[in-house]
């Protein structure tokens, strides 16, 4: 196989990511346990949003149903752990995590062929449908225990505080997701996906193997989302179908990208940070109108900054450049 990534900017991005991750890994030393839990929510949101971006941001296929992979991942892991009673926690968790990722990859592969033929809003609706089907099946088939709920094994080492442990676990997973996203973005696959986003028919005419590319991105996105779902579920310790198949998982990942900047990798991360801070910290105390304000913020966001914070930054940068040019004249 050829070089996985090419170009200097890719290596720069990777270096920045690793440095950022290291910095974030040190944060719990300075934060209260509550701060660490808010950090968990942020890292979880960022990881899920970047995993969504691999398909949605790069290729323009907006999935409105990624909760399907969060939930299915969580329940596959939980049920596999139930089936491995004598195992050590670390062993059972590893098997469960790998199996959940593999199974979600498989699930994505199976539904990808028919569903990825749909475009635009139809793909969005179909994914919404897929996530609903998964939710209904998990909650209504008794063997899957979605209604009664299921406990996950405790994988926290004895002398580590659980909120820190899961913060690091989620951070590790999110970092892996971001690195994979960078690799995808700068590989042939990534350029192909961008071409698909701009004009799928022309891309195909020019020889981009659109179908395999879309399917690959979809499968990668699904597996990464499932990985986050498994860790999230362990953090809760006990889940019912309602805890993991949440509409928020479907829609918020898109909000993060829109807020930060669609199609970029830094965009969803910034968006996740801003939204987590606003909804969990600033609006955490509001008893009865936090939902209203969240909705209002969403509306304002779409109306006032349709290209997100990255768009504002971009306009600003261009304006600065132009001013410089004019000043130099």
């Amino acid at each position, binding site marked *: 196989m050829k070089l996985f990534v090419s170009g200097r900017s890719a290596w720069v991005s990777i270096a920045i990511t690793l440095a950022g991750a290291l910095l974030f890994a040190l944060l719990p030393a300075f934060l209260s346990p509550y701060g660490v839990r808010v950090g968990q929510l942020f890292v979880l949101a960022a990881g899920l949003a970047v995993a969504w971006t691999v398909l949605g941001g790069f290729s323009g296929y907006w999935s409105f149903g990624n909760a399907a992979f969060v939930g299915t991942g969580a329940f596959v892991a939980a049920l596999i752990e139930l089936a491995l009673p004598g195992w050590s926690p670390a062993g059972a968790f590893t098997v469960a995590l790998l199996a959940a990722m593999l199974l979600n990859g498989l699930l994505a592969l199976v539904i990808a062929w028919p569903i990825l033929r749909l475009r635009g809003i139809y793909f969005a609706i179909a994914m919404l449908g897929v996530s609903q089907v998964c939710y209904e099946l998990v909650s209504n088939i008794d063997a899957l225990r979605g209604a009664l709920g299921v406990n996950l094994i405790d994988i926290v080492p004895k002398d580590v505080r*659980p909120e820190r442990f899961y913060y690091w676990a989620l951070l590790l997973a999110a970092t892996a997701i971001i690195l994979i996203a960078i690799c995808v973005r700068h590989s042939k696959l990534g350029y192909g996906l961008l071409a698909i986003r701009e004009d799928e028919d022309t891309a195909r005419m020019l020889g981009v193997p659109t179908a395999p590319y879309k399917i690959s991105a979809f499968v990668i996105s699904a597996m990464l989302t499932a990985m986050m779902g498994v860790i999230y579920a362990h953090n809760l310790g006990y889940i*019912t179908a309602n805890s993991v198949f949440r509409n928020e998982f479907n829609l918020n990942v898109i909000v993060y990208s829109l807020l930060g900047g669609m199609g970029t990798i830094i965009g969803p991360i910034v968006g996740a940070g801003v939204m987590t801070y606003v909804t969990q910290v600033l609006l*955490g105390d509001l008893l009865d109108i936090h939902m209203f304000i969240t909705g209002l913020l969403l509306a304002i966001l779409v109306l006032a900054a349709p290209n997100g914070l990255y768009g504002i930054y971009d306009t600003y940068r261009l304006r600065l450049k132009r001013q410089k040019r004019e000043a130099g004249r």
Partner: protein
Amino acid sequence: MKLDRRTVLKSMGAAVALPAIGRGAQAQATETIVIGGSVPLSGRAAETGLNVNNGYLAAQKFFNEQLNGVEIDGKRYKIDVRLFDDASDPARASTLIQRHLDDGVQFFLGSFGSNIVLPTAAIVERAGKPMMQTGGASDQIYTQGYKNIFCMFPRASRQLYNTIEYFKVLQPAPKSIMFAMANDAFSKTLAEGAIAFGKEKGLPINDIVTLPENITDASSLVNQIRSKKPDVLLATTHDQNSLLIARQLISSNVDVPLLYLSLGPQLKSFRDALGGYSEGLYFQQFWDERSPYKDAFFGSAQKFADYYRQHFKRDIAYHTASGAACIVAYVHAMKAANSLDPAKVRDKLATLDVESLYGRIKFTPEGDGDPVHLGSTVGQVLKGTAEVVFPEASRTAAPVFPAPKWAEKRRG
């Protein structure tokens, strides 16, 4: 006002800045006992969430305003209940519970729904603080070996014991019993516990139907009842679904001699919606304001209800009373411990055995309510009022069985 980008951004800034100011003002209270926790005030569980919330607040108001706080170890304290909306989101609930812990809150109140209560209970348990709750009755919570989590209700699988006992003494004895359960953790364990106990008692439980968590149409259930003609239908469903089932049974003219809807008829709005048709409906009754319970602080169940009505507009429900009882239990335990040390208060909660507005508060070793003292009674709507009809010791009216047919009620 012209809605340009600048005004929009400005108002957004205002919305962001507001809560920060609010928090600063809250912090200055002195000599208070802070009790933290969450309730779901948005989402599906908001209805019960609001009842629980009002119960907590009514008790707080009463202790602070009528009794001028509580005296513990020679010092007077005001009670400060701090709640937030968890929106039935387990991650949000865990994060905000952690905030309370970091703020030094020593005592906790619980949310509603086992998928919220369990993750938060795990955090509180680990921190060694007690949690009194009245919204998580699913069995899973009480099989974790937790020492600090207490519930005003018995675990779900034990809640319908009195109901099964009542079915046992029915005359004429029912020949077939149908169960219909909503597909959520609570309703399911509730029904499954009752089914297991009922079969043990030799009751003819012939049909079990599982319904979706939220239903828009109950016609398949109605059709099954029409063809199987059970003598008893016990539906473990939440209020809104119960009303839909009742309405469809009435308008399809399908009669069941004993129609038992676990949640629903206890609400006045439910009985009003059905008018005369609610006559004879059975339900799970945990509390009645006319119960002869004495309370060291409120005086009695009736006085609590009167006090609540004076200060709150919302109808009283048994969750309101059980919510208030959580605070009462805390105060009893604190007084008994003569200390605000959470470990000592926890020990006194575990051995608590005291009569209250809600009944005799006593917990099992696992922390859920004692099934005899805090279990449910059998309620029936008679002449538009919710009465207790079984067990005989606490009955407020004699049961009517079989209940009048819909057609008789239609004639008035």
